[in-house]
């Protein structure tokens, strides 16, 4: 970002992508044993410009272009973190995790446990998720449950520029493997981002809109759709509380339960395929801990059970949106 913005003490706005850059930059300034490694991160500054300028500032020892070798890249992160570095590993698209799932699932996630706690793996993995850019079935998925299902790994999904920067810093300071799943459709989204370092605490959700009648728990970009839906619903007299889950693993059940106890209604919204999505887990937690407070079944919205389609016409109806959320809330409340 420009020096003018950096020097400004007033609240300032950054795009989501600039917040990523700034978060990574703060980590590199703070931790001398941190480096970034991934495909196209150095010379190109990241395929979305998310590492732009970092090569010039930190040099090629710390901003490392890799071959297109996800097993190698993630393995590099595992091995380097095991012996004293704090790597930031870029897996360009979360869809590419299939290429490195052994390094993630069998090595990174389990090493500390298998070794009886004798090894620490302070590795951060950044990866892009989400549909909405006609990037079709292999570059648009939301696969957070693949990761959240693996004990030993933490998973966060920041929805705003503020959270993107603060989550990256929190992840890099954490002594565990943390996946920061970033939303590619939100890269141009603007929001307030403080200068300097701050953390968005991993494992905490945030009530982004307080309300009294209905709780919507939303994940990643769906937070913005939920907020839009809440505006529409408020015109119908429904006062919606929107919770940005922010962290998938660990998941902040308490914030959700406290809200449900107040609103007696709930809906979980995510972009991942609904079947087997994290929504099912959240709903189960709610019925387990707040069943007696519920006035209606807790709903779920996720993508339909198909790969992400390419055509904008199909993709538009594939990805959940505010209209779908409004319809579902109205159904739940018996509003016409």
């Amino acid at each position: 970002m420009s020096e003018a913005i950096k020097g400004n003490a007033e609240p300032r706005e950054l795009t989501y992508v600039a917040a990523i850059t700034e978060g990574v930059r703060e980590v590199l300034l703070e931790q001398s044993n941190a480096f970034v490694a991934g495909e196209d991160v150095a010379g190109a500054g990241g395929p979305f410009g998310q590492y732009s300028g970092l090569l010039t500032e930190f040099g090629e020892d710390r901003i490392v272009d890799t071959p297109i070798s996800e097993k190698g890249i993630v393995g590099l992160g595992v091995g380097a973190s095991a012996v004293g570095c704090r790597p930031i590993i870029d897996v360009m698209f979360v869809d590419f995790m299939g290429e490195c799932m052994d390094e993630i699932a069998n090595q990174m996630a389990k090493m500390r446990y298998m070794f009886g706690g004798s090894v620490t793996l302070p590795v951060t993995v950044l990866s892009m998720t989400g549909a909405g850019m006609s990037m079709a079935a292999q570059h648009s998925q939301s696969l957070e449950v693949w990761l959240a299902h693996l004990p030993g790994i933490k998973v966060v999904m920041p929805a705003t520029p503020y959270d993107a920067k603060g989550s990256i810093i929190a992840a890099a300071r954490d002594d565990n493997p943390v996946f920061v799943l970033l939303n590619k459709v939100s890269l141009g989204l603007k929001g307030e981002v403080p200068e300097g370092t701050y953390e968005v605490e991993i494992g905490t959700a945030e009530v982004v809109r307080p309300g009294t009648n209905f709780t919507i728990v939303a994940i990643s970009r769906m937070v913005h759709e939920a907020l839009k839906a809440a505006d529409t619903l408020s015109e119908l007299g429904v006062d919606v509380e929107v919770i940005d889950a922010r962290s998938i693993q660990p998941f902040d059940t308490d914030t959700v339960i406290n809200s449900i106890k107040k609103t007696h209604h709930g809906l979980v919204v995510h972009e991942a395929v609904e079947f087997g999505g994290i929504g099912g887990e959240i709903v189960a937690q709610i019925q387990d801990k707040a069943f007696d407070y519920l006035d209606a079944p807790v709903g779920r919205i996720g993508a339909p059970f198909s790969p992400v389609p390419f055509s904008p016409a199909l993709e538009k109806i594939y990805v959940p949106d505010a209209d779908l959320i409004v319809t579902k809330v109205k159904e739940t409340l018996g509003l016409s």
Partner: protein
Amino acid sequence: MSKQPTKKVLQELHLTMVRIRCFENAAGRLMEEAKIPGALHLYVGEEAIASGVMQNLSNDDQITSTHRGHGHLVAKGGDFSKMFAELFGRSTGYCRGKGGSMHVSNMELGMLGANGIVGGGPPIAMGAAFANRFLKTKKVAVAFFGDGASNEGSFHEAVNMAALYKLPCIFVCENNGYGEYTPQAKHQTIVDVADRAGGYGIPGVVVDGMDVIAVFEAAREAIDRARKGKGPTLLECKTYRFYDHVGVRGMGLNYRTDEELEKWKKRDPIQSFEAELIKLGVMTQKQIDKVYSKVNDLVEEGVQFAEDSPFPEPSELLEDVYCVKGA
């Protein structure tokens, strides 16, 4: 070739091989007596490789191992008591009973784990080597793997990246002729895995993995090269598994012949080295016998320690899933 190994080195190489052999024989027996739970993949027959390579490493250097990993940890300086305790699933083991045979490890010795996934080690060793250079140390990382793993994508990605970055990483292929139960000729068309080095622009070296001196010297050259910043070497050691893929007698599968086994047993890396040591006047038979008796005492002590050790408490089940600050 540089200077001949000293008498001290020769004796250390012998001791390491005997330590591995005695440890493994006991472990195999205890597994078959069902005292050790789960599956053990024994290193008997392949001792010259771990011993020859590790003789060139210090505790600061790292290794990644395989599912056949006890020998690597023994050669890296592993303590029998903590190793047996781990194999027995006791809380006094190297991994507090959480890893067992296939994940036995010790960070203080730079042993980054046996690995239940074929091809799991090379990317991790490459990453450790990356860190070694990033942190401006002189440490090297050695990835042990088998002929089977040389067909895994992880191996290729790791070697390519290590070569690209000229990392202090050595890839040691323990080619025992079988990927689990499938003979090499049925899993790849090449005879020498070291040929694959050419594809990455690094040296590929083939040595007799039954000859501890040959391994020691080839490894020394590769490790010196890596320490000098000249990048990785693929060092292939031809060897043979005297016991089955799993356990001693294994599952009784009919995938290799007795004749083949006997032929290789005649080249037992320890027996042939002992004959050489006697011939060279480095050790007498009496001294050799004393080595076995001392090591076997340690084995007995280790087994006793393991058997006397407690199992992990139920409260330990969920410990160390994550690193908890202040815990």
